């Protein structure tokens, strides 16, 4: 396997550990497997590249220890719904099945959300502030040609002072599984780091300055290599090479962006991401996807926002068997998605097919390798 850029990578690593001084944080233009990358010392302005590999991906929810945002508590799970359904426990005792078969004929609620009823009410997130991005461009969430009327959050963190959209937070904000420590949230975030299906690479080219640059190009790819944790497990080793998995060109994305006060902001684009969580494999289908990433010397963190195809989103986390640890009431979540969906209305029905969403992501600085030959693209290391 060709290993170019290794010396630079080592230099970066040494620099990151404070062992080499005076090395800029930027990495030269994307390394390629045929060795055509320019050296750092000869790079001209605007030719610098920032490579990133995403290491965690979480729902951007407002979470307080005393559940202020969930005044009615967290959403009950399927077992509670079963027990609250008149005659359901007696029926499965007589006819068989587990708590998952609480439909009138033993249907699992996650697969028949229009048929199975939740007797316990849905618990919505209540918060004036929230993470997200202003996806619809309005200050008040009024209906537009491509959006449905909705409420806004006052942006926090990187979008402080903006009115932002994140209807997904209203759907999932009080569901244990999607909050920090929840099964789905933790499994997914871990699988983003540990599972190659979820390797997302971001390549920012044409960078003059990491602090302020009015015009950069941003490409996103599916990657092929692992990210490596530091010995204490708390961070990721920066500046490792990350090959693009060129078997999957459908995940190649391209947009423009800018860097403002050290924050990368990208123009919205339609995006498809590979997704794997708890053996559920599918494409994440987003519209108006945009990044707000605070760039650090070894890493980056911030928000990935956009409109998610809500039926696909529901499917991603509901097609497997039910895990009670998640405390999901699937029919409630299904109907909440439908109710809160705020993007891309169906021209006939007016029902929005997409829902605004925001995710907290972290990434580690990496060297993006563009394999020149098929064997380099998929060789094991």
């Amino acid at each position, binding site marked *: 396997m060709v290993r170019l850029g290794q010396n630079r990578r080592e230099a970066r690593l040494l620099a990151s550990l404070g062992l080499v001084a005076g090395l800029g944080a930027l990495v030269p233009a994307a390394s390629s497997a045929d060795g055509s990358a320019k050296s750092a010392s000869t790079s001209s302005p605007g030719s610098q590249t920032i490579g990133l590999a995403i290491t965690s991906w979480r729902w951007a929810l407002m979470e307080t220890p005393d559940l202020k945002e969930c005044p009615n508590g967290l959403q009950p799970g399927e077992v509670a719904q079963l027990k609250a359904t008149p005659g359901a426990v007696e029926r499965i005792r007589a006819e068989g099945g*587990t708590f998952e078969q609480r439909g009138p004929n033993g249907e699992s609620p996650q697969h028949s959300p229009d048929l199975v009823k939740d007797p316990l009410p849905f618990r919505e997130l209540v918060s004036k502030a929230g993470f997200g991005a202003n996806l619809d461009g309005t200050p008040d969430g009024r209906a537009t040609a491509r959006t449905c009327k909705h409420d806004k959050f006052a942006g926090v963190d990187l979008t402080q002072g903006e009115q932002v959209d994140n209807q997904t937070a209203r759907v999932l904000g009080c569901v244990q599984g999607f909050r920090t420590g929840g099964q789905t949230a933790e499994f997914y975030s871990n699988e983003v780091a540990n599972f190659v299906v979820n390797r997302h690479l971001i390549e920012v080219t044409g960078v003059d300055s990491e602090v302020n640059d009015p015009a950069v190009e941003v490409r996103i790819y599916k990657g092929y290599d692992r990210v490596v944790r530091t010995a204490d497990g708390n961070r990721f080793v920066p500046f490792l090479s990350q090959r693009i998995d060129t078997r999957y060109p459908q995940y190649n994305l391209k947009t423009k962006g800018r860097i403002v006060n050290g924050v990368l902001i990208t123009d919205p684009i339609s995006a498809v991401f590979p997704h794997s969580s708890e053996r559920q494999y599918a494409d994440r289908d987003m519209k108006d996807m945009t990044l707000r990433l605070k760039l650090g010397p070894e890493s980056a963190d911030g928000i990935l926002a956009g409109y998610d195809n809500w039926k696909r989103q529901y499917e991603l986390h509901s097609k497997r068997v039910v895990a009670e640890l998640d405390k999901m009431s699937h029919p409630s979540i299904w109907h909440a998605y439908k109710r809160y969906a705020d993007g891309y209305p169906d021209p006939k029905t007016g029902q929005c097919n997409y829902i605004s969403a925001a995710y907290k992501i972290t990434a580690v600085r990496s060297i993006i390798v563009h394999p020149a030959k*098929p064997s380099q693209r998929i060789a*094991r290391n």
Partner: protein
Amino acid sequence: MKALPLNRAAAVGALILACLSPAAARDAETGTAPAHMVMTFDGPVLVNPAGMALYTVANEDSAAYHFTWRCTNVAPVRVRDAQSETGDRPHIGYKLLKSCAAKFPPYLADANAKPVGDYTIVTRPEGSRQWAYRNYPLYTSIRDHKPGERNGSYNGSGYSARGFGMRLAVQAVRLPVGFKFSRRNEGLVLHWTATETPLYTNRNASRVQLASAGGLSFDPVLAPAVASASGDWSIVEAGAGQKQYAFRGKPLYIAPLTIDETEFKAAGWEMVVVSKGPALPSAIGKQLSLIGEVYTNRNGMTLYAYNCNASGSGRVTVAVSCDAAGDPAAWMVAVCGDGKECAKRWRPYIAAANAKPEGEFSIVDITYPMFTDMRGALYPADAPRVKVWAYRDRPLFTYHTDEKPGDIYGHNVSGLWGSGFAAVEVPGMSAIFQP
């Protein structure tokens, strides 16, 4: 499914006879053993004299101190539901569930049969005498309809495979350390465990050489100094005083760490195929998806099989399959609702009138919708019938939310542990590994 010609299989088997355990080889030679080995693309599989594949159950070791029968004549009717704390209860659709022994009939010994070599006889709980190989009781599968089929061991993947413990009975084969067989699209190939990659020979190499072609270096598989020739295996000089393994006279090499063969096939390098893989019908295609290559219909859409396994009592007994005609429909109801809705979501891949079975793909007759009574049986006799493609005796379906080739939205759609639909993956072509 096309039967594997027994005379050819026997010839292949004879090639590696010297690799077998001495007792097995002796028994096979004398013809006294109740089963013999057939080399297949699933490995060196044991078959009975009628040529039907034999199976064993994981952990059903009759010589174990705490031996417990895992494949019994009793249907698994109870299920634990610890998460709900509402007590144990019957499996859904329990009235129609069958026993493991009904799905995998025990391979019974004649009244006057005696143990021979690795084959012993164990007495089942109901008193019948059953052949065992190396202490593991042997079974046949009702999914195998003719010699050469090995449908009983296929069980999909993911959640639907949970708890399934039936596996093909495989003849013990001695391989040098570091080698194993693996199933790939090409068939059964020789595999190098250190790199987890297939091994190669070069059809142009008539003598030992340190090979290099097209800028790609192939490393010889070095043999220890004490290695000696045995059966298909021989030792050749690799130069510099080193020895190299050869298989069927061809020196073995480890390919560059790549799984893309297009670059070096032209230079004469080829995988060591021990038993060639099955052919594909023209109606079946292959497509790269997120999980790797999957089988598709003519339009490139992913094909799925329904698998259902009712877990055994307390997980002591083996899970019993519940996805065939006559099994309870209730498990499919859990996944997709009533018969009409299930038929809308999961669409059988209809076979053309002139379609012919090929390799692992057959044509089966099922009902569509797959059931009409939610408390009744799958594929009931009195419903409209269609002829559909099947993989290893499992009817194949497409999924309603897949929009384009490569989509796998229907993969691992599960309603209960042990039950659901899974994409049919091309063997050995998984993309889900961490390089």
